[in-house]
């Protein structure tokens, strides 16, 4: 999404897998209405956790490899990675309070 830094199949390893802090990846596509609504919330959550959470977005239309590797069949999907491991997955657009409730155990 426009509000989030983009990662691609090529940059995923460097930007996400090798990051030293948790990374939330917003898998989205331009034709997905709910994605457009949840992405600004993801950006807000990122802005509220400077230095402790990195947020990025991956366009699944342009990047087929990573979504397939993580068996993504619904968007929006928000995947949280820590040191290369997928530690939490949220499927579907949810309000900010519910997103934070699911994410907060994993972020400091």
């Amino acid at each position: 999404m426009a509000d989030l830094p983009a990662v691609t199949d090529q940059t995923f390893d460097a930007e996400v897998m090798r990051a030293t802090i948790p990374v939330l990846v917003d898998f989205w596509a331009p034709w997905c209405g709910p994605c457009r609504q949840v992405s600004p919330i993801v950006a807000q959550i990122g802005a509220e956790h400077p230095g402790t959470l990195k947020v990025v977005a991956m366009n699944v239309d342009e990047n087929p490899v990573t979504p397939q590797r993580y068996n993504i069949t619904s968007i929006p999907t928000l995947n949280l990675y820590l040191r290369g491991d997928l530690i939490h997955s949220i499927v579907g657009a949810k309000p900010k309070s519910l997103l934070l409730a699911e994410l907060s155990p994993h972020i400091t």
Partner: protein
Amino acid sequence: MSIVIVGSGPAGYTAAIYAARAGLEPVVIASSVEIGGPLTTTTEIENYPGFPDGIYGPELMERMRAQVERLGAVIVPDDAIRVATAGDIKEVETSDGTVHRARALILATGSAYRTLGLECEKQLVGRGVSYCATCDGAFYRGRPIVVVGGGDSAVGEATFLARFASSVVIIHRRDQLRAAHRVAARAFEEPKISFAWNSVVTDILGAERVAGVELTDTLTGARRELAADGVFVAIGHTPRSELVQGQLNLDPEGHILVEPGRSHTSVPGVFACGDVVDAIYRQAITAAGSGARAALDALGYLESE
């Protein structure tokens, strides 16, 4: 503030248009992630008057929103978490803690999709189980899928999904479709679509990912399995009236009860419109029409006070 509207589908937006034109400066509580309501996840709409070539659901809702904003209504992109209907001043609290107060309240909260209610269903959401064909269809390029349901949504989605999937089986508990003739005809013409009549999904197969469904024949009770990578569920909706449960009279299914032909609920100053009151029609145009009624009823109430 004189009027608060909860909901941003065709009913809520139309109520806002009428209330704004009456100079009431309405506030629309539009939700955080479902602004525009269920039409934002549909494809082409052919039955909304004024669009001879059809219009895409998201575009229709963006146009309604633009009209609402141009007329001066305030759109709040947050979720209502509490509604207080008693007394002369109604309250709607949003999840950021703001309490919106007004003399009249219009509820246009719509409905939520119905799930199959199977134990395994929740675990497989995002792993092959979907409630949004337009969101997820493209992930099933060249793969077999099933669609559960026989109404306009289910059959329309099946036709949309046939663009991507290798095969689409429509699973319906009756022996004929409930969908409109044109919608059904398109599905019958689509070579990728076949039908499992008189069948209900009694189990979803697969541990990590959907591998198929177990079907039970409604006439004979016979069980069979059908391989599929995706299960799209479109079996109807339940009204979203939890926020006013115990405050307003509801029917046994949870629809808000209104005076016949009007929008007055059981509490003075509270009006309801759209799918949350409608067990029968549930169309964009009927929702819009009932939104107009609710705004005019609310206007009458405010003037008579």
